[in-house]
């Protein structure tokens, strides 16, 4: 096995968590190696300028071809039986019928990307702050758990992340705490959002310009967005501030950070003192290598980070590294989503603009008086209806005159009104290791177990009812599709598999993402989440937590504690 020179810090993953850490530590003079499982992409090579751009939907090109198929990346437990009481939530489309005709929930489809930049390669640029109440779920509402940190602990780091990235937004949202000015002005609403806003307004809801890590004017060498609506297919403009075009280049520019793409970590190793001393990984030529490091930071996502810890067994940690609590992989939280696709009789050019340019936070704060206790946020988006081929394949009648008539009459007229809510943490929802199945590199894969609670189902039911009210009030001509987490498991936001806390028996990490068990091991991504912030998107919170943890690493290193 080849070895490399010891570095101060080895970071596993270059996405929303790893990139800010690399940047902050590199600036402070730490020698850093970032091991990224996927390749480094060139935005100029994305497909959005090609005629057949719609034939390259996500996840291509962001899945390492060596993995071949997503099914090789993870396994899942037998999905739960569908509760017939909520059968009105079945996913369907007018053109294709029910998407899931079985009596069980469809196994998870987890939106992950491997590549320099991680999942920010394909995310839609949402840059939300969790609200203060999002950190106090247990004490405020009697459900879930409280975080060991508060909004105030993160506020300066939210500011810092927004300034680094050039987040665009508008002050005055009545459902968010007061804050300073945004680095960039908000994006004007698209025609589709303006049209749907009529419905929100009639119901007294507040559709607000979304907070986005997408430039609304030239910023830090990046051009302003030209509203192609292709954010999740990879931003060719570099207007979307994915980590690949923002913090990773900044980190590398310090001269202290080396990013190694196509480097798949198999195991984190420990020394006799019980401290981590490096990692074993496969390099781009599939040679097994060792990287020694004084500190190891795991930022591989709430799916891959616990997988790596659980696969890193030793006599000291027979149940997986940093797992004396037995909670590594536990409290997995998925995405509770409902979406309603409607047609408007007038042209709303819904394929033009930003992917999610508007949100309504009226129900972001949980309320005990509802039939469920969780927060959720509404939104307006073209989602997957980005061009003619998407319409033809997904919502138009299959073929013939009806198909043609639909396409000529309704292209640009369809929009999705949707909601995303938080799933309350449950110890039963978890990531474990499937001992039988190994990936391309011979590493046992993660097994996902996730079930919906009655609270989740009641929330989905509420989402459906409210979305229907909104589109009716907006005057939509026809509903043509609904999909929901009831029978499809579409997981884009995930978290909670190495939760932070102050009690080592009830958490994996301390409030700075440092392992309770191993002081020079950190897990810095959404694994540390205790709850999901009332439906807000997680990336900005991951950035803020990462910058805060980086300050801690710097100060503890100066004190000689690391």
């Amino acid at each position, binding site marked *: 096995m080849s070895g490399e020179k010891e570095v101060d810090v080895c970071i596993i993953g270059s996405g929303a968590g790893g990139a800010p850490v690399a940047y902050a530590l590199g600036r402070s003079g730490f020698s850093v190696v970032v091991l990224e499982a996927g390749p480094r992409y060139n935005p100029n090579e994305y497909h959005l300028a090609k005629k057949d751009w719609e034939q390259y939907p996500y996840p291509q090109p962001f899945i390492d071809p060596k993995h071949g198929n997503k099914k090789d990346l993870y396994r899942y437990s037998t999905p739960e039986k569908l509760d017939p009481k909520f059968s009105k939530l079945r996913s369907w489309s007018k053109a294709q019928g029910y998407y899931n005709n079985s009596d069980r929930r469809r196994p998870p489809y987890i939106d992950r990307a491997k590549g320099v930049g991680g999942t920010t390669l394909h995310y839609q640029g949402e840059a939300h702050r969790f609200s203060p109440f999002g950190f106090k779920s247990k004490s405020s509402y009697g459900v879930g758990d409280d975080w060991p940190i508060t909004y105030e602990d993160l506020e300066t780091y939210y500011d810092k992340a927004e300034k680094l990235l050039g987040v665009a937004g508008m002050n005055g949202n009545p459902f968010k705490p007061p804050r300073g000015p945004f680095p960039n002005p908000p994006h004007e609403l698209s025609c589709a959002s303006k049209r749907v806003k009529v419905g929100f307004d009639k119901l007294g809801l507040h559709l607000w310009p979304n907070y986005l890590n997408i430039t609304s004017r030239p910023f830090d060498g990046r051009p302003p967005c*030209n509203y192609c609506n*292709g954010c999740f297919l990879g931003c060719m403009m570099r207007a979307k501030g994915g980590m690949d075009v923002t913090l990773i280049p900044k980190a590398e520019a310090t001269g202290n950070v080396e990013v190694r793409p196509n480097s798949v970590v198999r195991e984190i190793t420990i020394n006799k003192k019980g401290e981590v001393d490096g990692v074993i990984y496969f390099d781009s030529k599939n040679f097994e290598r060792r990287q020694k490091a004084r500190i190891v930071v795991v930022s591989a996502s709430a799916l891959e980070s616990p997988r790596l810890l659980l696969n890193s067994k030793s006599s000291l940690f027979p149940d997986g590294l940093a797992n004396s609590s037995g909670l590594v992989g536990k409290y997995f939280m998925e995405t509770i989503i409902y979406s309603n696709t409607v047609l408007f009789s007038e042209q709303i050019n819904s394929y033009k603009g930003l992917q999610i340019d508007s949100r309504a936070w009226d129900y972001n704060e949980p309320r005990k008086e509802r039939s469920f206790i969780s927060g959720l946020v509404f939104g307006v988006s073209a989602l997957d209806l980005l061009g003619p081929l998407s319409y033809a394949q997904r919502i138009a009648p299959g073929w013939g005159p009806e198909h*043609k008539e639909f396409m000529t009459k309704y292209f640009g007229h369809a929009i999705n009104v949707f909601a995303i809510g938080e799933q309350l943490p449950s110890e039963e929802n978890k990531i474990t290791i499937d001992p039988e199945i190994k990936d391309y590199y011979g590493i046992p894969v993660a097994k996902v177990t996730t079930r919906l609670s009655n609270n989740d189902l009641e929330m989905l039911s509420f989402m459906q009812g409210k979305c229907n009210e909104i589109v009716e009030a907006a005057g939509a001509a026809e509903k043509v599709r609904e999909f929901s987490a009831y029978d499809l498991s579409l997981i884009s936001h995930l978290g909670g598999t190495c939760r932070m806390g102050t009690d080592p028996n009830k958490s994996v990490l301390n409030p700075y993402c440092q392992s309770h068990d191993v002081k020079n091991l950190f897990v810095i991504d959404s694994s540390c989440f205790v709850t999901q912030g009332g439906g807000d998107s997680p990336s900005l919170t991951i950035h803020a937590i990462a910058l805060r943890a980086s300050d801690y690493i710097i100060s503890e290193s100066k004190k000689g504690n690391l």
Partner: protein
Amino acid sequence: MEYRDSDSLTRRKFIGIITSFSVLSSLFPSNYLLSVWALENKNLLKSQKLLKDKFRFFSPYQATVIEEVTSLIIPSDNSPGAREAGIVFAIENSISENERLRTLYQKGIEWLDFKAKELTGKDRYLDLNQDERIEILNIAGQNKSSSYKEANIPRVDRNTTVGSLFFNNLVRQTLDIFYTSDLGWKVVGYHGPPQWAGNLNYNKCNFK
């Protein structure tokens, strides 16, 4: 039955139509152009004839069947459809290097002929009138979940599964090709691809 091929739509004529359309479209509003186009080509599309173009894989009969079926998938009405987009040529290109697909298309066309005989007593699919052709495609289209990637192509070409695999694949390919072409985009009023022009007018709305 004999098929007249003296007025067949050759590749040259096809390219001529597309080129004319492209040039004219830069001069006139698209709705006007589409109406003119439909009027001029009414006679060309009226009679059944075999394609004369040289194909690498398809015989003239097979090519004509494919073109006729695709023209029912995206019909020509007051605007161009699959026929004018030259879908048959694109399909031939796409399957010429794929033996599995070539077999599927070959068997699928045999199935159409078999079904024509079974349902109407006529020898071949091209002998049928439009309603009869659509009836057979509806039979094939009933099993929507079939995909050539998911199932082996059966040896028995009289099984409806062959027809479903073939037809569902043909629908998918036709949509893929038509809606990633300039002509298809013009028909639905799309000005793509997304980059590099973007949509700087994204917030200019035509409604109050």
